[in-house]
C-alpha cells in the first residue's frame, strides 16, 4: 500500500454479472452512497472502508466488456481507466474476473493491465463452478500476468479477507508484462489458460438448459412471462393491503393525537393539516413500492430478465424498440426515473431514444396511489382488481403505440445491434436483494417525499389564506349564525376564495369539459410536481374543508361529496374514468423530464414528451368523459 495518510482511490472493474457488486457490498458494508458520475446520470456507487489505518475510497465502475465503449455505461468505466485526470481514475484497480467466463473476463483484464495501473486480479466464482476452477493454477496465472491473484466467492463472503490483505500488501507497481500487440488477445488468453491448466469452455448447467427449454419457448415463454406479471401485480395488491391499513390507521390516530396535545396555533395546524397529512400520503405507498422493487430485482438477479429480452426482441423490433427495452419498460412500472437510466445499456441510439420516450407511459408506482383511490371510488367492488390490471395494460399498449408512431417519424440510418449474454440461472442472494430494495425505496421516498412535503406546505398555506378583504367578508357573513351546517358552508366558501381556490378556478374553463371541478384543478396543478401529490392534495383540501376531526379516509370524504346542482355524487363514474385516463397519459413528473433532458442531452425530447403525452391525455379524457356520460 502507498505511504502517507491521504485516501487511496480504488476502483472495481469487470464484466456485467461478474459479481463485482457483491464484492463492493461486502467490502464497504453499509458505508456506501449512490450518486451520479459527473455531468451524466450513470449511477455511481462509491464507499469507504479502512484498512490498517489507511482510508480507502472504493468506486464500483459500471460493468463493461472492453475499454472500447459502445454504451454510456461502458464509456464511464473506460474513461475512469484511460484518463489519469478523471476524478475517478484509480490508484489501484481490482479487476473482477468471473471464474465461469474466464475467456471473456480475461479479455477485459488484459486491456486494463495494458494501461499500467497497479492491479489485483480478483477471480470471483459462481458457486456452482467451484469444481471446475479449482484446477486452475493461480500461482501460474499470477506469474504470467505479473499481478496478484485472489480467489473469492463474494456471494458467500469467502476470500474477502485475502483480498483485503492483497490490497494492504500491494507494491503499487503496475504489471511489467508486455504482450506482442500483433498477436490477438484471444491467443494470449488461450496460452495463459493452457499454462495454468484451466480452460474457458464450460458446458451449460443442466438446470439452465431445462429451464430455458420452457422459458424461451416460442409459445410457452411469452405465456409464462405474462402469467408471471399478472401474479406479480396481484401479489403486490394483496400483500401490501395489510401493512397499508396499519400505516393508515397509525397516521390518522397520530394526527388526532397531535391536534389534541399541541396548542391550537398556526404551527400546529401547519404541521397536522399540512405536513403530516402530506407525509401520510407518501408513507402509505411504501409497501406497494417495496414489493414492486422486490419482484423487479428478483427477475433481474436470477437472469430471467435476459430471457425475456431474448424472446421479446422479435416483437419489440416491430415497434422500433429492442429486447433490452423490456428492462426499462418493466422498470417503468416502478418509476420512470431509474427505468430511463436503465435504457443506457441499449447501444443503438434510436432504439434507446424511443425507449426513453415511451417508458413514462408505463403505469409507474406514483400513479398507483391515484389509480387506487379513483378505482376504489368509482369502480364496483368485484371489478377493482381487473380495473387496475386494465390500467397497466393501457400503459403498455400506449407505450408500444407511441413507439410505433415515433419510429415512423424519427429518421435514423444506424443499424441496431443486439448482442447480449444469456447468463446461467442463479439463486438470488437475499442480502443483495434486500440491499437493492432498501436503496431504491429510500431513493424513491426521499426524492418524492421532499417534493410532496414541500407541496403540502404550499398547499395548506394557499388553502388556508386568501385575499384578506374577501376572507373578512365571509367571516362577518357567518359571524351571527352558529350551526354545524353553517360551519361547513363557511369552510367551503373560505376554501373557494383562498389563493389556491382562485388558482384552481382560473383553469376551470380548460378542464371543465373533462368533468373536473376547481378542486381537481388544484390537484392537477400540484400533480405536475409529481403524480402522487394528487392524493395528498385531495387529503389536504378535504381536511381543510371539513370541521370535524374524524379519521375517515380521503376516499370516504370524496365519495360523500354531492353535486349541488344534481344532488348526485360529485365524483361519479364518467368523472373517475376521465381522470384515470388523464393520469395514465399526461406527463406530470418533473423528475422524469429532468432525467430525459440529461439522458438525451437536449430539452427537445422532454418538451416533445410533455406535449405529446399531455395532449393525448386531454383528448382521450375528453372523449372518455363524454362517452361515459352518454351511457
Amino acid at each position, binding site marked *: 500500500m502507498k505511504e502517507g495518510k491521504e485516501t487511496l482511490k480504488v476502483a472495481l472493474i469487470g464484466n456485467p454479472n461478474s459479481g463485482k457488486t457483491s464484492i463492493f457490498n461486502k467490502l464497504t458494508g453499509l458505508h456506501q452512497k449512490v450518486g451520479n458520475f459527473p455531468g451524466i446520470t450513470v449511477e455511481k456507487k462509491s464507499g469507504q472502508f479502512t484498512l490498517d489505518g489507511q482510508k480507502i475510497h472504493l468506486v464500483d465502475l459500471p460493468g463493461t466488456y472492453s475499454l472500447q465503449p459502445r454504451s454510456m455505461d461502458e464509456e464511464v468505466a473506460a474513461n475512469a481507466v484511460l484518463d489519469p485526470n478523471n476524478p475517478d481514475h484509480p490508484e489501484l484497480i481490482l479487476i473482477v474476473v468471473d471464474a465461469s467466463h474466464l475467456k471473456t473476463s480475461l*479479455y477485459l483484464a488484459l486491456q486494463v493491465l495494458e494501461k499500467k495501473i497497479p492491479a489485483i486480479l480478483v477471480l470471483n466464482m459462481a458457486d456452482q463452478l467451484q469444481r471446475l476452477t479449482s484446477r486452475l493454477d493461480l500461482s501460474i496465472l499470477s506469474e504470467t500476468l505479473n499481478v496478484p491473484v485472489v480467489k473469492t466467492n463474494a456471494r458467500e463472503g469467502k476470500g474477502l479477507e485475502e483480498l483485503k490483505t492483497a490490497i494492504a500488501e500491494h507494491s503499487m507497481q503496475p504489471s511489467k508484462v508486455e504482450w506482442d500487440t500483433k498477436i490477438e488477445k484471444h491467443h494470449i488468453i488461450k496460452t495463459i489458460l493452457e499454462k495454468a491448466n484451466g480452460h474457458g469452455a464450460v458446458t*451449460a448447467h443442466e438446470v439452465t438448459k431445462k429451464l430455458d427449454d420452457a422459458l*424461451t419457448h416460442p409459445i410457452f415463454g411469452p405465456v409464462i412471462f405474462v402469467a408471471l406479471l399478472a401474479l406479480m401485480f396481484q401479489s403486490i395488491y394483496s400483500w401490501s393491503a395489510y401493512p397499508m391499513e396499519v400505516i393508515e390507521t397509525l397516521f390518522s390516530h397520530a394526527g388526532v393525537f397531535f391536534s389534541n396535545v399541541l396548542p391550537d396555533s398556526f404551527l400546529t395546524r401547519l404541521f397536522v393539516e399540512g405536513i403530516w397529512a402530506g407525509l401520510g400520503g407518501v408513507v402509505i405507498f411504501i409497501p406497494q413500492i417495496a414489493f414492486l422493487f422486490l419482484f423487479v430485482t428478483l427477475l433481474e438477479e436470477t437472469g430471467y430478465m435476459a430471457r425475456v429480452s431474448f424472446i421479446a426482441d422479435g416483437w419489440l423490433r416491430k415497434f422500433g424498440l429492442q*429486447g433490452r427495452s423490456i428492462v426499462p419498460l418493466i422498470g417503468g412500472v416502478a418509476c420512470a426515473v431509474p427505468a430511463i437510466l436503465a435504457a443506457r445499456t441499449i447501444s443503438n441510439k434510436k432504439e434507446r431514444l424511443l425507449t426513453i420516450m415511451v417508458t413514462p407511459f408505463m403505469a409507474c408506482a406514483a400513479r398507483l396511489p391515484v389509480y387506487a383511490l379513483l378505482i376504489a371510488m368509482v369502480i364496483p367492488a368485484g371489478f377493482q382488481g381487473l380495473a387496475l390490471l386494465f390500467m397497466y395494460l393501457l400503459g403498455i399498449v400506449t407505450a408500444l403505440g407511441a413507439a410505433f408512431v415515433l419510429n415512423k417519424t424519427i429518421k435514423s440510418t444506424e443499424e441496431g445491434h443486439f448482442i447480449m449474454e444469456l*447468463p446461467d440461472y442463479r439463486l438470488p442472494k437475499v442480502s443483495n436483494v434486500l440491499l437493492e430494495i432498501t436503496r431504491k425505496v429510500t431513493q424513491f421516498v426521499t426524492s418524492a417525499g421532499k417534493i410532496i412535503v414541500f407541496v403540502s406546505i404550499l398547499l395548506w398555506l394557499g388553502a388556508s389564506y386568501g385575499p384578506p378583504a374577501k376572507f373578512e367578508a365571509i367571516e362577518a357573513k357567518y359571524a351571527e349564525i352558529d350551526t354545524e351546517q353553517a360551519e361547513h358552508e363557511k369552510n367551503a366558501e373560505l376554501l373557494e376564495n383562498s389563493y389556491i381556490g382562485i388558482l384552481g378556478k382560473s383553469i376551470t374553463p380548460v378542464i371543465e369539459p373533462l368533468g373536473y371541478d376547481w378542486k381537481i384543478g388544484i390537484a392537477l396543478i400540484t400533480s405536475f410536481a409529481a403524480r402522487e401529490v394528487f392524493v395528498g392534495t385531495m387529503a389536504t383540501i378535504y381536511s381543510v374543508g371539513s370541521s370535524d376531526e374524524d379519521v375517515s379516509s380521503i376516499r370516504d370524504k370524496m365519495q360523500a361529496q354531492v353535486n349541488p346542482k344534481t344532488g348526485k355524487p360529485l365524483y361519479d363514474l364518467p368523472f373517475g374514468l376521465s381522470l384515470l385516463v388523464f393520469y395514465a397519459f399526461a406527463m406530470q413528473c418533473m423528475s422524469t423530464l429532468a432525467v430525459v433532458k440529461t439522458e438525451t442531452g437536449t430539452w427537445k425530447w422532454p418538451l416533445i414528451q410533455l406535449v405529446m403525452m399531455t395532449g393525448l391525455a386531454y383528448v382521450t379524457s375528453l372523449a372518455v368523459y363524454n362517452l361515459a356520460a352518454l351511457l
Partner: protein
Amino acid sequence: MTAKDLVLGQQAIVSSFSDARLAMHLAERGVVAGERLCVERIAPMGGPIAIRVSDHVLCLRISEASTILVQTESI
C-alpha cells in the same frame, strides 16, 4: 455460409467477419475466427438466435449473425 444459415443445434467453426466494426465487439465476447459455435435457441417473430460460443451463450439478431462467416464441420 453464415451463422444465420445454421439450423437449431448445428455446430460450425467461425472463419471470418464481413463487418469490421461489429467484429471488434464480437471479439470482446469471445467470437473470433477458429472458435466453435452452436445454435442453441431461436427466438419467435424473427427475433434473435442464441449461440453457444467461447464460454457462454450469446444472443444475436439475424442481421448480426449474417456477418459471421462459418464453416460447418461435416464433409
